């Protein structure tokens, strides 16, 4: 199974994500530079965290115009799983692949801390190994992580089961404490917390197994025995 990790100017979690996919989950992982076409043999794509284009104008908006985004749109229509983490999530909303927008945290602080998520949708390619409402201890590291949608869109997200993760308490002022959402088809998932920083017991002081299930869900979806 081939997974692409998209690299934009200013991505800084691409290597962590590459390490987790290739060394922890034994996937054939490929860096994909944003200005080049997306390789055609990919079975999943991950947009990692970072500060693409230095967050200039608005986090994710300039990267959303990168050539590779058009390729990602095309393969997403075929149902290929796409995961955006942190800045990757910001890029997915700014490119219109996911609903909503990410605003500055209520505190105006860059927040770097452990949070607890609850799984609200366990049908996506990244959550199919979870029990519904299962908790995930996982770190966040962002300045613009406050997920916002208007009331009408929020109703729609709830009705169509597009809310994938919520924080279990108020963290940054996100609408309904949303930490991650998916598209209507469920194959594109965006989340602010960093699973790639939580899957190994050496760097997770809590429990690394729930975060691992995000990647194990992908393996399950692709029919890979790890």
């Amino acid at each position, binding site marked *: 199974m081939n997974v692409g990790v998209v690299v934009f100017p200013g991505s800084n979690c691409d290597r962590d994500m590459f390490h987790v996919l290739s060394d922890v989950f034994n996937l054939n992982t490929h860096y994909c530079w944003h200005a080049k076409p997306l390789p055609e043999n990919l079975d999943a794509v991950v947009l990692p965290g970072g500060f693409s284009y230095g967050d200039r104008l608005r986090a994710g908006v300039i990267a959303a115009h990168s050539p590779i985004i058009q390729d990602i749109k095309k393969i997403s229509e075929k149902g290929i799983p796409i995961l955006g983490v942190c800045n990757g999530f910001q890029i997915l909303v700014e490119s219109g692949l996911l609903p909503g927008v990410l605003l*500055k945290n209520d505190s*105006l602080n860059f927040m770097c801390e452990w949070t607890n998520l609850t799984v609200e949708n366990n049908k996506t390619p990244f959550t199919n190994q979870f029990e519904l409402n299962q908790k995930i201890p996982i770190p966040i590291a962002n300045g613009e992580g406050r997920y*916002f949608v208007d009331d009408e869109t929020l109703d729609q997200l709830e009705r169509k089961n597009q809310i994938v993760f919520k924080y279990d308490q108020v963290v940054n002022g996100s609408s309904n404490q949303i930490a991650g959402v998916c598209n209507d088809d469920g194959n594109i998932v965006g989340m602010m917390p960093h699973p790639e920083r939580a899957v190994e017991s050496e760097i997770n002081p809590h429990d690394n197994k729930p975060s691992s299930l995000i990647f194990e869900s992908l393996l399950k979806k692709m029919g890979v025995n790890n």
Partner: protein
Amino acid sequence: MVDYCVHVTIENKPGISDPEGKTILNDLVLKGTHQNVSKINTAKMLKFTITENNKESAQSKVREICDELRIYNPMVSVVTIDAFDA
């Protein structure tokens, strides 16, 4: 064709919280002697210099650019676009 200066002001829609504006109001302005200020909204301004036939076309061209490239996010922001002689 002459140069025009076009100011694009991007601010939150009414109802979208603006914690930075509130902080400037509560922790700076109202802590001084200026008690008659009731609200501060932060905004981001971009200043375009653009070559066009007239001020109106400069303004409409910049609006087109802002919409096409999502210079502002229409879900949460509004823009005001003003054109001036450069």
